[in-house]
């Protein structure tokens, strides 16, 4: 079974600084998708970024970028120029291409942004 591990339950960062959130996963599949979702205090799940496993190029979305290491099964999220609005729970998630259709989530990491 696929598993997703977020080993850091909490992190903090100073406003305008850069922070990296780590995620590892376990799968025997070669084709899959990885996601980072953000959950602010409203508890809505908001997509931050997506990475296709077949792509070697790391995904970027404005201030958000990932470091995808397929061999190491590592998928970290870098937030540059952190803003107060980035404070939230961040969930890493895995989605297989074919087979099971469900997203498998990590336990989440609480990010605090200090002014």
């Amino acid at each position, binding site marked *: 079974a696929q598993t997703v591990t977020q080993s850091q339950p909490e992190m903090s960062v100073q406003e305008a600084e850069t922070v990296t959130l780590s995620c590892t996963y376990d799968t025997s599949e070669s084709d899959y*998708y990885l996601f980072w979702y953000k959950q602010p205090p409203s*508890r809505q799940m908001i*997509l931050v970024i*997506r990475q296709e496993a077949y792509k070697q190029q790391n995904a970027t979305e404005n201030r958000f970028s990932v470091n995808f290491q397929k061999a190491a099964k590592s998928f970290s999220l870098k937030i540059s120029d952190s803003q107060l609005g980035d404070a939230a729970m961040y969930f890493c998630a895995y989605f297989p291409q074919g087979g099971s*259709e*469900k*997203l498998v989530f990590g336990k*989440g990491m609480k990010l605090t942004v200090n002014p």
Partner: protein
Amino acid sequence: EPEVTQTPSHQVTQMGQEVILRCVPISNHLYFYWYRQILGQKVEFLVSFYNNEISEKSEIFDDQFSVERPDGSNFTLKIRSTKLEDSAMYFCASLQGLYETQYFGPGTRLLVL
């Protein structure tokens, strides 16, 4: 931008009562999901639905749960006889195709007393 909507946003019910949580997925999406998140815990998959039938369900999704797509727009989750441990945030999600991204609704916060 199209979005998944859910109603109600909050629901309080007595143990043993039936609840129906409603979702309107994005209109051209074909795959529909329910997930739940107990406070402070990770998001857990409940069930996926495609072509008017359940395609996968988790061990959480027992006989107390059912899903339905009664018309072309709504997707519902029914809990027949709620238990205290059903208190959670319930998220609906939809997906256009299996190579796409799941988009989540804002969630329904269910509290069972």
